[in-house]
């Protein structure tokens, strides 16, 4: 497989402009002749669907929820980065570019990341024009806050609900286009396969979740904006329905899967309370602006009440280890440091898997009212879940799976290795390398959706001679038949275990062997355990009910089946990458003081895995990462 990233030639700041000029355009009168399917209605999907409809394309948009407004982008709390430099604190496109490349531990493409930093400023303008109620200063101008991995204040926010407000902006734009007739929306609809005709993506197979009808939807191009696959761990901060099915089915139809092992573990989540836990809840990273992270200095103090532990007996370990970034060190570093403290027997709360995030100093400095204004809704959420008042006692937090940097491989045009199949947002691998900085996911989703895809898809359509497709074609019938058969099989097994129980077991394997710290022996063990679990799944899963009705257990079982395959690929990728970088930490590869030790000589590439059939191991393809503008260095936040 040839991996051509199609990064335009020329100086970094001019690449995107030049490319936009070089791209072919579709005549306005011809745009209405093209149909584009957009799967997913989060920031990337809703923005892309709305914008392409504004341009004149026929768009169909799909989401598994009952309304496009519920996509998981809505849960993002802290903010969105943009190189506006409104604070005059030295920010610039170059600096956002550099911070993102460095934050990603030098495992992303210069060209893509520079474009992202350039577009960031347009996103804020667009969102304000749509009526996104960002936080403002008394003078009426936009407010900013700081976020991990940056020393400038470039994060725009709407209280602790930034994702919600940005998504509602994109959702409203989408609804406006639905009303105009440019977009047909299919809620409660799940894509279960990709239709490839003559080597090009020409449609998807969709199950209507209410009636159970399985049908092909055909088009000229397909966009996947279906989010990340963090739910492979069962417990994560992802919404319960988030899944890998759309990208996994596309992988099995020929799209390469890049860097599947790059997983982000977010440092500030509410710790697990018990066996019943169904998901984990994030506490925005913005809390680290004012909260100080600590654990007791001595193991024997962990059971004491935090207020009874004097200042001298506390270990503010982030401030101690990383004096210049302190509590704002990047997510991967902060998460590993928390794990180390707990592994050292100094963790607090149930099971010793927690560290304190303490606001006492900030409350003494600026007053409780100011803290309430900044984080009130987060504090309330914490109290509802834990029954503890964080204004009075420190929060307890622990890292949790939050985001997946890996995803389907795409070129500069966001097109996968299947022509016509475009991938946007968290579902692709493109911009965050081995670790994503806080407040950059919203930026990337909207950059892809509002600004990149609507241009590049026109170039694709204008340069193709697309033959007509119809439902009677063998490729279409075969894809629909595959989905029907798979659905029938899931219903026919009638074993003894629920899909959820398999999901939990898989999640435990992934967390133990492919989580915050990985090593060869454990990964090999996981690669043995997962196929056994998968085999048992297909022999022993129990899915009550029928196919031709609303059947949430059937939906769940289909998703778990795909996670059971993806998990193995993640472990293979983690095993082959014999270095530590960003969120991928191999215990064998670390510096003397326990930091990630990269191997640029051998691993400065994107690992793009290619499906080779049920019986064969996937094929590894490598896209070398070329750094012309940045000097690779050991990341230091000290």
């Amino acid at each position, binding site marked *: 497989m040839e991996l051509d990233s199609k990064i335009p030639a020329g100086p970094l700041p001019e690449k995107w402009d030049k490319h936009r000029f070089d791209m072919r355009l579709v005549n306005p009168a011809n745009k209405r002749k093209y149909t584009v399917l957009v799967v997913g209605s989060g920031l990337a999907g809703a923005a892309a669907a709305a914008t392409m409809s504004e341009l004149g394309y026929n768009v169909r948009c799909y989401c598994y929820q009952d309304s496009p407004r519920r996509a998981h982008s809505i849960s993002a709390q802290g903010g969105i980065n943009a190189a506006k430099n409104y604070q005059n604190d030295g920010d610039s496109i170059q600096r956002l570019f550099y911070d993102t490349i460095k934050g990603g531990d030098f495992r992303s493409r210069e060209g893509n990341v520079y474009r992202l930093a350039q577009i960031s400023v347009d996103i804020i303008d667009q969102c304000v024009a749509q009526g996104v109620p960002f936080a403002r200063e008394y003078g009426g101008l936009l407010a900013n806050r700081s976020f991990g991995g940056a020393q400038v204040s470039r994060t725009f926010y709407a*209280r602790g609900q930034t994702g919600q407000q940005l998504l509602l902006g994109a959702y409203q734009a989408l609804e406006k286009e639905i009303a105009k007739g440019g977009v047909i929306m299919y809620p409660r609809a799940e894509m279960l396969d990709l239709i490839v005709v003559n080597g090009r993506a020409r449609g998807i197979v969709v199950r209507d979740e209410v009636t159970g009808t399985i049908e092909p939807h055909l088009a000229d191009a397909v966009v996947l904006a279906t989010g990340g696959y963090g739910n492979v761990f069962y417990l994560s901060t992802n919404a319960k329905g988030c899944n890998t099915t759309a990208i996994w089915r596309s992988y099995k139809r020929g799209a390469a899967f890049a860097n599947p092992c790059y997983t982000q573990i977010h440092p500030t989540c509410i710790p697990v309370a018990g066996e019943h836990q*169904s998901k984990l809840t994030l506490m925005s990273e913005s809390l680290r602006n004012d909260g100080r992270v600590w654990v007791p200095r001595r193991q024997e103090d962990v059971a004491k009440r935090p207020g009874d532990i004097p200042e001298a007996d506390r270990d503010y370990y982030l401030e101690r280890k990383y004096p210049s970034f302190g509590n704002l060190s990047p997510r991967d570093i902060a998460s590993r440091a928390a794990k180390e403290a707990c592994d050292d027997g100094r963790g607090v709360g149930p099971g010793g898997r927690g560290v304190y995030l303490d606001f006492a100093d900030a409350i003494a400095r600026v007053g409780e009212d100011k803290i309430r204004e900044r984080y009130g809704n987060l504090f309330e*959420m914490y109290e509802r879940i834990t029954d503890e008042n964080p204004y009075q006692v420190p929060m307890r937090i622990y890292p949790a799976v939050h985001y997946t940097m890996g995803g389907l491989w795409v070129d500069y045009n966001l097109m996968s290795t299947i022509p016509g199949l475009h991938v946007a947002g968290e579902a692709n691998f493109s911009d965050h390398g081995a670790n994503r900085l806080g407040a950059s996911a919203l930026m990337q989703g909207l950059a892809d959706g509002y600004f990149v895809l609507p241009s590049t898809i026109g170039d694709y359509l204008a340069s193709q001679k697309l033959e007509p497709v119809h439902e009677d074609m063998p490729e279409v019938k075969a894809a629909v038949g595959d989905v029907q058969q798979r659905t029938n099989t899931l219903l026919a097994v009638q074993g003894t275990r629920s899909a959820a129980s398999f999901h939990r077991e898989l999640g435990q394997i992934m967390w133990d062997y492919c989580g915050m710290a990985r090593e060869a022996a454990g990964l090999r063990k996981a690669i043995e355990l997962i196929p056994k679990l998968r085999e048992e799944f297909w022999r022993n899963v*129990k899915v009550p009910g029928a196919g031709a009705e609303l059947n949430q257990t059937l939906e769940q079982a289909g998703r778990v089946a795909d996670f059971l395959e993806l998990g193995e690929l993640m472990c293979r990728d983690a095993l082959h990458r014999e270095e530590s970088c960003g969120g991928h930490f191999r215990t064998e590869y670390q510096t003397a003081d326990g930091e990630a030790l990269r191997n640029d000589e051998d691993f400065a590439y994107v690992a793009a895995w290619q499906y080779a059939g049920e019986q064969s191991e996937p094929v590894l393809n490598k896209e070398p990462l070329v750094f012309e503008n940045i000097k690779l260095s050991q990341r230091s936040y000290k």
Partner: protein
Amino acid sequence: MNLTLKVWRQAGPDQAGSLQSYAATDVSPDMSFLEMLDEVNEKLIRSGDVPIAFDHDCREGICGSCGMMINGVAHGPMKGTATCQLHMRSFSDGDTVLVEPWRARAFPVIKDLVVNRSAFDRIIQSGGYISASTGAAQDANALPIPKADADASMDAAACIGCGACVAACPNGSASLFTGAKMSHLGLLPQGQPERFRRALKMVAQMDLESFGGCTLFGECQAACPKEISIDVISRMNRDYARAAVRQADERVGGGAG
């Protein structure tokens, strides 16, 4: 603790439903209400029964998917809390808990606790947006907005579209939902050009969807998990009245007030 659940079961939109009893055993006070239902469903699946269908997704109180009447109260006993964030410490051992779907003519039941809320999307389609096509925006700081206006707009924009306001209202009115969107947009300068047109169209759509009228019971505000104030309804009524008088005249006098 152990509880008895009485849950509304309905196999499909056109089928009759009824309340069925289930035992929820060994319930931990740290469980969320949905995690308690997960455990009940897990047992139903193991015994080959069809589990209780309910909408849910983020389980962080922000996506608006979940929602049920718990002992006759939308989202249950805890104020300002969506069902997914309601924890079992709000209940006591031996309690009987009645669990029903949203009851409203505009939200027909699809199955068990799952209802069709697509009427909300159509209300937004009728005018709940600012027409600003991608690419046409000026610099974000070119137009300062008083902090108080931005904050009030955000208060209204916090709506998660769960439908609790409709379910709680004796008239099945969607006024809190519609008023919240009109206030979110109408309090911002960007929302002015379409403000009165928006008022006419959204109110008309609300009526078309067979939501009831607002008679200011105030139940919606009490049930809202985001505690959106009923003031947004006054604002909607004011905008609607002014728009009805002016009808086609879309000029705006007097700013964002």
